[in-house]
């Protein structure tokens, strides 16, 4: 709304004809609901402009545009006639829409190839991808006169009026496109990309611009053009995206420290000026539910705990966060929502009733295959297992043929086991669902369920719950470095027996009390209110009631009627896309806030408590919200948000795609792979739960480790596989996100590490320096470790090239600091290169590699040199405000589904205290949430 009002102000110079819609009505003849609701446009009433927008852009003008016909031309000509050639859209918004949907695509498709900054071609001196471009015209002068299509060169050229000037040269445009362009010119050639231009032109004396002149134009002008940036020219291009300049200013990267610096107030004025000049962020007014949100919501609604997100296709598309507003629902996604809703409903309300809870006692048998039997033997009442690693390096778990899950569900597994042997470490018993053996007839995919840490020499029962699919069998593998490939072992894990109990029925919360249709409807009402997060009248629910009634009368089944109507609710646009009316938002703001809050922090629907808060008439104040956010962050469901943040912000979603080479890193195992991402998640959870300083993202003296990870990191005396807070020894290189194995692995390819890729990761995700993509036709370099030159020398050669160095000096150094960590996150002092093995690869603890050059982890960034990762951390800590700002921006984008605009960035930056110690994770998140929910949301929508 505000945006409309603002846009309108830009157009107030143009005459608005109040009878426009009346004319439309006349033209249309039958007046069938077409622009008939309002014949007088009153620009002073903002509520009315909204209605006009609906009316004119959705029915009037776009009809002309989308169905070009003789009618369209007639309308155009008539308009010209009636209004002296100066036709203006009934309101600015529709003009903007008209430009964006009709004109911009034509210009882009037909003209930009030869006339645009994007393609770098300006044939005839003309560019058409900016407003100043066409305003300035080409070598032959002005190309169009707003309001006068016949006198405009552009129109003459596309009409092929003059045989010496025919554009596009290959073929004449279709008549409808010519008509549209004529219409556009006659309407005054409204180009919405006007704002920045205007603020610049009209603002020559403005303080902000003067300050840019004072602090920036010295280097970034036509002559020097440092960093390939001519700011004074850039500012005059209305399509110029000021984000880059803005970010460099806000994080103190520019002006460089050796130049004079603007004062805080001056800087604020510059940022302010820049943000005022930017176009509003375009977001659709609705957001679809992501697949994770869908599954979590259904789980919370049904009381189930099913990890079914993978049954829905990856829906992030080409975006960083799956919450992005630009991601649209597709038929394929809708189809899988239909299917997954069915499966989850069937699980919660099984047609044939719940499977009886049953107990199985599995006593291990001697493995039937010799290779296995060598590493296990009969022992007391059960079996003794050593740690097996097969020739290809995989672990193949033992015994699996006495239990098969009858249905999918949660099961309690109890392992009676003891440690045999005089070593201090625990033995890990890894439990997998599924079985695999090289000549299995029906191999099952193995899924790691849990790891039991056995430290006691007496038999004890270790119990835990797991989720099994129908037909899943269990298998175990015993991990201990002391028993690796021991034949006929004397030491190892003694497993006496395993008890399985399930499916556990207390996991199903839906209770069926009555069998009447009235009861079905009550169920629908409660379910839908939470699913849709709004108050619903019987009238609202009528289609769902009718569906239930019809099914009930046909099948006489309470269950069937309930399931079909709940499924309809779960597939409804009210659930999947939350379409809301402006009026509704005004009246029921609380519901909107509650719904957003639950989606942001829990990736789900509100719980009863939040829902009753929404139902309350009382306005949700920042204080109420803050306490609600605190409550929600303490709820285990917040863990979903943290996991999702790790997956997307830090890109841990790709963690499992990378399999480290067992030639180079023979010690890497599925156990390490299982624990590494947990470290990052637990660490981030800890920072948020305990409201620790944001600087802990960069450095701290602790992390969350267990026996296996401590071993991986070379830290002694950590016993047991429970992940817990472990203090690093003094002088350790570890601490903070950058030195975590998960991060170090995901930034490598599993073989070598590239300082460029790691540097780019840090630069993008942690520091938040905006990077331009490499210029075209520049050779991209990969390090060659077999060469005599050191890696750094090779990169230095690359950076010797000035155009490369402009960016690489800001990327590579971060990566240099991480050179002392290999692709699995272990500390190294030398690089490894693969040595060929004879014939087939046979796993061995020594691997197949030789060590080459020494690692050099020195570098220089922001004119400060460092000698290792600890040095880099110090440099980054000095930039703590920028780090916190980058985190905040990412968190905002992650929760809101779009990048903050420049105005919002200023607000976000203002939330960050100057003292690093005062900038706390939970506090910052809470402020961001309150701002997202109560802040001036209208601005951006």
């Amino acid at each position, binding site marked *: 709304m505000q945006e409309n009002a603002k846009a309108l102000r830009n157009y107030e110079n143009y005459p608005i004809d109040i009878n426009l819609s009346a004319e439309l009505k006349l033209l249309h003849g039958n007046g069938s609901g077409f622009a008939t609701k309002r014949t007088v446009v009153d620009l002073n009433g903002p509520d009315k402009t909204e209605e006009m927008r609906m009316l004119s852009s959705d029915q009037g003008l776009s009809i002309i545009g989308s169905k070009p016909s003789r009618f369209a031309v007639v309308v155009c000509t008539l308009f010209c006639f009636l209004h002296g050639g100066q036709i203006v859209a009934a309101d600015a918004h529709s003009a903007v829409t008209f430009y964006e949907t009709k004109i911009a695509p034509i210009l882009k498709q037909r003209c930009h190839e030869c006339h645009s900054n994007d393609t770098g071609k300006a044939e005839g001196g003309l560019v058409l991808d900016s407003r100043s471009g066409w305003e300035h015209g080409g070598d032959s002068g002005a190309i169009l006169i707003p309001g006068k299509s016949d006198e405009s060169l552009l129109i003459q050229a596309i009409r092929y009026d003059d045989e010496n000037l025919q554009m596009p040269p290959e073929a004449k445009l279709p008549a409808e496109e010519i008509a549209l362009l004529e219409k556009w010119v006659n309407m005054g050639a409204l180009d919405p990309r006007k704002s920045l231009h205007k603020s610049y032109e009209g603002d020559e004396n403005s303080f902000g611009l003067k300050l840019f002149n004072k602090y920036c134009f010295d280097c970034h002008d036509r002559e020097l053009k440092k960093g390939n940036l001519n700011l004074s020219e850039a500012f005059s291009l209305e399509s110029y995206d000021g984000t880059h300049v803005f970010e460099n200013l806000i994080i103190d990267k520019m002006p460089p420290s050796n130049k004079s610096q603007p004062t805080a107030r001056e800087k604020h004025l510059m940022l302010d000026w820049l943000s005022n000049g930017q176009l509003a962020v375009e977001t659709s007014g*609705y957001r679809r539910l992501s697949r994770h949100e869908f599954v979590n919501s259904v789980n919370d609604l049904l009381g189930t705990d099913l990890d079914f997100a993978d049954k829905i296709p*990856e829906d992030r598309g080409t975006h960083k966060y799956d919450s992005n507003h630009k991601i649209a629902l597709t038929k394929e996604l809708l189809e899988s929502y239909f299917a997954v809703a069915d499966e989850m409903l069937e699980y919660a309300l099984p047609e044939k009733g719940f499977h009886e809870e049953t107990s199985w006692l599995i006593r291990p048998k001697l493995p039937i295959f010799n290779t296995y039997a060598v590493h296990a033997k009969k022992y007391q009442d059960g079996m003794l297992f050593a740690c097996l690693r097969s020739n290809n390096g995989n672990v193949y778990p033992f015994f699996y043929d006495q239990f098969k899950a009858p249905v999918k569900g949660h099961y309690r597994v109890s392992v009676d086991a003891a440690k045999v042997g005089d070593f201090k470490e625990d033995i890990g018993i890894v439990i997998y669902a599924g079985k695999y053996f090289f000549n299995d007839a029906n191999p099952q995919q193995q899924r790691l369920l849990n790891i039991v840490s056995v430290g006691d020499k007496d038999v004890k029962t270790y119990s835990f719950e797991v989720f099994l699919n129908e037909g899943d069998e269990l298998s175990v593998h015993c991990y201990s470095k002391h028993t690796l490939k021991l034949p006929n072992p004397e030491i190892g894990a003694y497993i006496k027996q395993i008890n399985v109990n399930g499916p556990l029925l207390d996991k199903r919360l839906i209770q069926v009390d009555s069998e009447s249709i009235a009861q079905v409807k009550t169920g629908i009402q409660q379910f839908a209110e939470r699913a849709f997060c709004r108050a619903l009248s019987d009238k609202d629910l009528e289609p769902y009631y009718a569906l239930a009634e019809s099914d009930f009368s046909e099948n006489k089944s309470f269950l069937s009627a309930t399931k079909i109507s709940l499924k309809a609710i779960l597939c409804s*646009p009210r659930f999947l896309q939350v379409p809301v009316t402006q009026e509704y938002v005004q009246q029921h703001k609380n519901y909107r806030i509650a719904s957003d809050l639950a989606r942001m922090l829990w990736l789900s629907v509100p719980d009863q408590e939040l829902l009753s808060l929404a139902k309350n008439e009382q306005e949700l104040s920042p204080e109420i919200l803050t306490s609600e956010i605190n409550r929600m962050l303490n709820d285990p469901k917040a863990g979903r948000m943290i996991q999702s943040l790790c997956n997307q912000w830090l890109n841990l979603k790709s963690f499992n795609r990378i399999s480290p080479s067992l030639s180079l890193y023979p010690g890497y195992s599925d156990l390490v792979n299982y624990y590494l991402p947990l470290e990052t998640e637990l660490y981030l959870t800890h920072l948020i739960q305990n409201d620790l300083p944001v600087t802990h993202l960069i450095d701290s003296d602790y992390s969350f480790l267990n026996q296996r990870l401590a071993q991986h990191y070379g830290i002694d005396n950590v016993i047991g596989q429970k992940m817990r807070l472990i203090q690093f020894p003094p002088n350790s290189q570890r601490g903070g996100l950058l030195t975590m194995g998960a991060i170090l692995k995901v930034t490598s390819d599993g073989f070598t590490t590239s300082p460029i890729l790691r540097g780019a990761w840090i630069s993008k995700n942690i520091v938040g320096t905006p990077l331009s993509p490499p210029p075209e036709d520049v050779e991209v370099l990969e390090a060659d470790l077999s060469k005599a030159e050191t890696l750094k020398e090779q990169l230095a050669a690359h950076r010797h090239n000035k155009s490369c160095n402009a960016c690489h000096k800001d990327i590579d150094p971060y990566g240099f600091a991480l050179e002392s960590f290999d692709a699995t996150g272990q500390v190294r002092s030398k690089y490894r290169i693969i040595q060929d093995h004879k014939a087939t690869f046979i796993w061995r603890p020594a691997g197949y590699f030789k060590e080459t050059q020494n690692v050099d982890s020195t570098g220089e960034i922001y004119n400060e040199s460092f000698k290792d990762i600890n040095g880099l951390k110090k440099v980054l800590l000095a930039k703590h405000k920028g780090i916190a700002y980058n985190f905040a921006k990412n968190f905002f984008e992650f929760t809101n589904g779009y990048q903050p605009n420049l105005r919002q960035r200023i607000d976000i930056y203002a939330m960050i205290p100057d003292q690093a110690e005062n900038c706390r994770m939970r506090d910052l998140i809470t402020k961001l949430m309150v701002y997202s929910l109560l802040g001036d949301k209208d601005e951006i929508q």
Partner: protein
Amino acid sequence: MKSNRRNFLKGSIASSLALSPLILNAQDTDSVEKSDSPKRIIFICNSLGFYAPNLLPKTAGDLGTSDYLKQIKTVNKMTLFENLYHPGMKTSNHDSEKSFLTGGMFPESSTFKNTISVDQLLARKLGTETRFPYLNLAISDRGWGSSWNEMGSPIPPLHDEQLVFNRLFGKEDQHAVELQLQKDQAIIECLRRDISFLKRQDADPSSLNAYLTNLDHLEAQFERQMYWLNKAKPQINHSLSKDTQFPFSTKLKNLLDLSRLAFQTDSTRVITLSLEFIEGAIKVPGVTGSWHSFSHHANKKNLLTSLEHIEQNILKHLNQFLFDMDQIKEGDRSLLDNTTVVIGSNFGDASNHTHNNLPIIIAGGGYKHDSHRVLEGPTPLCNLYLELLNKHDIDMGKFGSSKKNMALLKS
């Protein structure tokens, strides 16, 4: 409900006819008339391209002098084009991959909105008589491949070969599926009522319309499923490769085998296969390592050798695919002759991320092949797409950045 289901279905078909292009035209006649040798098409996008010096023939005009193509057994049934490109690919990242089949310009821009891909337009025409209007396949689970719908959204491709196999040839419980489809039809009716109610309440129309489009398509698909339910799926004697030593090669082989089988059994006539590069390392005979790192070879010998191993492996499977297709007789021609195979990439040179001179191969399709065709000056790839559309009786004057149908393919 059951008694009048048939009428009810008819009604909804009529309504969806107007709304959805993806619907079967032969719903009410039980026998589907099939043309003698249906035209088919497959698009394969190798996202990191091919190392040009190995691909391009040493002697212009003679594919026998191309290191890569001389080994292709059906080399006389293919044309390698030079000088095709997509205008508007300024990007230095991998964004151009989004535009491979759409021609969408400036895909790196934050305001980029893609457009419908050429395969989807073809599926509207070619996809009406088969069980599946089209098949979108991809080598990984990234969630987007080469196909984009009319709203410019990526169509999530199938990547799990077992799932593809089951969809094409797996047994299904007809009764259960029928019941399910009936229930889903009732749910769709309920949702339509709710939507019209919401519309009257003046809810955000862009949200509802977007949803409604998807619902229409889904309904059309359900109807199609219902129609095909009592027609037995083809029985084939084929088992997927389970070789775990080279997962990438195994997957590629399986997806190509499934594509051939889908054509052979006339289960679909339009396929896209996206070979997006994979994060981390892949393993093919001769090399294990990061495909992407190798692609940035900067002409360094060791990297190039590794890259060649991967590209050779891909070509080996493509070769087998073309050969198998050519071995299958259909009338007096081969399946390959009735199938246009488009093999290409969004990168001309992945090492430098350039987008001019894309490697584009057209194989099969019954065309008179030119072997090696060097076009005069940069030519929009969309010209060729436009020609393919026209060749398949789709009357369009323009597709993407096309300028004209250049009649490059002679029948």
